[in-house]
């Protein structure tokens, strides 16, 4: 290879950029372009005029308010419960009791389970012929099956979705927290013990503050994904419970209107950004309160 | 196979930090040169510039007369021993040692022979089929050295190879390395922050500080005639002692005033210091050149004992003279207690003088 070419390709200064190029190109084509296109689709009609028509129709749709309501409700209900559960599991496993590694892997199993599969799994539990009804029957609690999933019992249906999502996605948060816990140097914990903080005190005063960055990331990530809940709801509750992502899907696929679908997608994005920003501000000010 | 190394105005910057400042250095063929200095002085960076693992921002590097500045490490005729040994975990000892020869496409039986030979030289021939994870730190270090020597390089570079070993092993390996150098004779550049290693191993020592060489001399010269206060205080166990003094004249002869006391000056200095009456200087003297007397009589410098450390073969005393702290040694049999005032007699010939302002040594010539 002649010196000139080698210099161009191999200099340490340029090499990293060459290695990054494919990734950057891919992201450019598959993230940035669709992002721009989505915004265009949402705001621009086929004839080329800028319009808010699609947003208007989106908002005017009968299912819109419900979709908004349920999406938010899901995120707000699921995420805190999940974080607490995941924290409990992470702390338990972190004590390092005999066999903790095995249980760690076990707890992480749901990571590999698709939201569609999770929905179907819990369908087998909640459906009128499902396991929950069978157990309740055999325990003598009921004579006839309860319709957990139906228009009449929308509250119960919602609960079923919450249970299913909680089961599926807690592992995601747990793994983040476990990694964060492992990064906490044992020295801090031992120093705390020596200074008299044991058990719950140690958790509250030493571990949790040190875990803050992981908790923060976990909260943000989990919330963003929770806002996008889609297949679990569809598999478990069909279209009884509208959600924003689901509406986007229906508008594109069933009603063949990519414009309104894009409007939903843009709305989702805006909400995600807003909530992330909100989290960061909220958590940052909390941190300052604790430090000061 | 020993080549000369020449660095010409080599400069290496990392962001805002200048790690190596326009350095000129000439290493003779077959010489064992030690780059010595505290952390961050640029010694490792200099070594890596010679190796080609860092590109110099300015200046040129020559090995064996060739300009290697633009060449990658593989083409410079060097071999390197890393501080962490960098022994490949996924290869056996034999494969590790033979790696470089395999890269050269040497015939298999030649490689085998060379590997065995070098392994015997470093006494690891029993371990050839083991994996690094099965070896102790000392053994892995030998593998790293073997892997470098087997290449018969023109230049051997070592980056603090002994610093991760425990004290006893370090002592042994030091002697080993010296023996190896005698037998193999490659030009070696050795980086360390341990001045004992430097004094023991080097043909010459380059004492570095903040990217520059402050003194380049044989161990004896660096020890005995440090170029400045920094070198004097860095080399030697315990390091050189320093007293603040002023040049004064009385009765026709020049002497040094340390506080209220006078210290005699060696004949040769009389002339030199004539023109410097009133100058503030720093007096440097090593512990072994200070005689400890139980009491400060007979013109001995009074010193108050602060700490006494029994070190087996001698007693190390930390004493205070005026505002300065000194370390002196005496026989362990003398009973000396903290708070006691003893007397110090300085050997005239071994007194070194430094300019207080510049910290540089005052030279006789």
């Amino acid at each position, binding site marked *: 290879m002649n010196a000139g070419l080698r210099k161009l390709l*191999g200099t340490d200064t340029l*090499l*990293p*950029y060459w*290695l990054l190029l*494919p*990734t950057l190109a*891919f*992201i450019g084509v*598959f993230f940035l*372009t*669709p*992002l721009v*296109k*989505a915004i265009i*689709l949402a705001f621009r009609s086929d004839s080329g005029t800028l319009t808010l028509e699609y947003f208007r129709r989106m908002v005017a749709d009968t299912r819109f308010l419900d979709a908004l309501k349920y999406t938010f409700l899901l995120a707000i209900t699921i995420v805190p419960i999940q974080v607490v559960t995941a924290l*409990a599991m992470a702390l*338990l496993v972190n004590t390092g*009791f005999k066999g903790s590694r095995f*249980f*760690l892997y076990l707890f992480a*199993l749901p*990571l*590999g389970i*698709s939201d569609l599969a999770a929905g*179907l*799994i819990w*369908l087998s539990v909640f*459906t009128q012929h499902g396991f929950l*009804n*069978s*157990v309740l029957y055999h325990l003598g609690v009921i004579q006839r099956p309860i319709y957990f999933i139906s228009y009449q019992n929308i509250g119960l249906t919602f609960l079923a979705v919450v249970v299913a999502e909680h*089961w599926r996605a807690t592992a995601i948060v747990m793994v*983040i927290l*476990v*990694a*964060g816990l492992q990064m906490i140097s044992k020295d801090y914990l031992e120093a705390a013990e020596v200074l008299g903080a044991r058990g719950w005190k140690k958790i509250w005063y030493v571990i949790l503050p040190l875990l803050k*960055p*992981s908790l923060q*990331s976990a909260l943000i990530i989990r919330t963003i994904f929770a806002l996008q809940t889609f297949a679990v709801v569809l*598999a478990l509750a*069909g279209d009884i419970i509208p959600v924003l*992502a689901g509406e*986007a*899907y229906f508008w594109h696929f069933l009603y063949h209107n*990519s414009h309104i*679908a894009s409007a939903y*997608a*843009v709305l*989702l994005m805006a909400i*995600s950004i807003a909530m992330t920003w909100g989290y960061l501000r909220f958590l940052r000010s909390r941190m300052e309160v604790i430090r000061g | 196979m020993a080549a000369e190394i020449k660095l010409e105005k080599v400069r290496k910057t990392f962001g805002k930090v200048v790690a190596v400042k326009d350095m000129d250095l000439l290493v003779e063929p077959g010489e064992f040169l030690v780059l010595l200095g505290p952390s961050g002085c640029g010694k490792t960076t200099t070594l890596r510039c010679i190796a080609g693992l860092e590109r110099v921002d300015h200046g040129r590097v020559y090995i064996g007369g060739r300009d290697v500045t633009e060449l990658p490490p*593989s083409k410079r005729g060097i*071999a*390197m021993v*890393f501080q962490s040994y*960098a022994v*490949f975990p*996924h290869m056996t000892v034999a494969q590790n040692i033979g790696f470089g020869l395999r890269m*050269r496409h040497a015939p298999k039986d030649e490689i085998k022979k060379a590997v065995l030979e070098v392994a015997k030289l470093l006494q690891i021939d029993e371990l050839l089929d083991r994996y690094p994870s099965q070896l102790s730190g000392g053994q892995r270090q030998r593998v790293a050295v073997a*892997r470098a020597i087997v290449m018969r390089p023109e230049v051997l570079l070592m980056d603090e190879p002994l610093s991760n070993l425990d004290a006893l092993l370090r002592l042994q390996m030091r002697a080993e390395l010296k023996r190896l150098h005698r037998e193999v004779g490659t030009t070696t550049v050795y980086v360390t922050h341990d001045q004992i290693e430097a004094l023991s191993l080097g043909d010459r020592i380059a004492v570095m500080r903040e990217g520059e060489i402050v003194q380049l001399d044989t161990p004896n010269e660096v020890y005995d005639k440090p170029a400045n206060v920094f070198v004097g205080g860095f080399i030697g166990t315990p390091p050189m002692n320093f007293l603040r003094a002023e040049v004064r004249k009385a009765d026709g002869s020049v002497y040094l005033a340390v506080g209220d006391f006078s210290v005699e000056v060696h004949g040769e200095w009389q002339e030199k210091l004539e023109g410097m009456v009133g100058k503030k200087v720093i007096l440097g003297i090593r512990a072994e050149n200070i005689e400890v007397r139980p009491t400060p009589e007979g013109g001995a410098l009074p010193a108050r004992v602060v700490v006494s450390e029994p070190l087996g073969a001698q007693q190390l005393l930390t004493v205070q003279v005026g505002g300065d702290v000194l370390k002196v040694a005496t026989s362990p049999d003398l009973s000396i207690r903290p708070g006691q005032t003893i007397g110090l007699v300085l050997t005239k010939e071994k007194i070194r003088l430094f300019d207080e302002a510049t910290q540089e040594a005052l030279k006789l010539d």
Partner: protein
Amino acid sequence: MSFPYLLRRTLLYMAVFSFAIWVLIPIVLIGISAFTPKNEVYAWPRPIIPSHFSLETMSFFLHSYGVVRSLLNSVWVALLTLAFTLAIGAPAGYAVARFRFRGREGFRLGILITRMFPTALLAVPLAVMYLKWGLYDTLIGVALIHTAMALPFAVIITTGIFMGVPKDLEEAAMTLGCSRFGAFARVALPLALPGLAAAAMFTFVISWNEVFAASILTVNNRTLPAHILTTIQASPLYFRFAGGFFMILPALFFMFFIRRYLFHMWGGATAER
């Protein structure tokens, strides 16, 4: 062994076992459902354990129109995704791990941000764009968007993996006669292989499980999740249960192998600085 200690230990184990059961039971249940004979699925009252296990449901599922094809499609898409993602992402991970270059932190931040894009935001416009490019309803098209979704993970994971391989091993190889690439291939790559294999399996699972984009971007060439989703309203219960069971199989299989790297991946992804 003091009493409070024993008490705490017992509570600990009770908690752990409770969680374990909570995680496992639904998986066991879908397994049971998938092997329950068709008629018993709709029976009431329903025994928890069916009278006998049968392969009818599975067989019905597999023989249903389009299922085997969608299965094969899923495998193919997942493999393509795996290949693309690693080929594109691993070099980037290596670059971030090894080099200090201007824009490094910006790049890492950018990667993190892409993780937060809603899938809908990507899939809906891409469906329109694919029509123009002739990629609509193709497996490659799905693989490409899956690659885009998996790429951020891959970059983050491979960065962690390569950071775990000490830099001086490659430097030592370079002083012994290797070119930069040679040092990478002979030293870094073999040592990174287990981690890369885990990343590959993780990518496979991501692609296998993906529902939304696959459903939007295909009509005839569906992947398994897309197929199940689009037929979900019309299909009988036992079909859905069998489908669900099939979907989780590879995940359960692979999770066993990649367990050691779980923390590099998810955890390291966010705890990175």
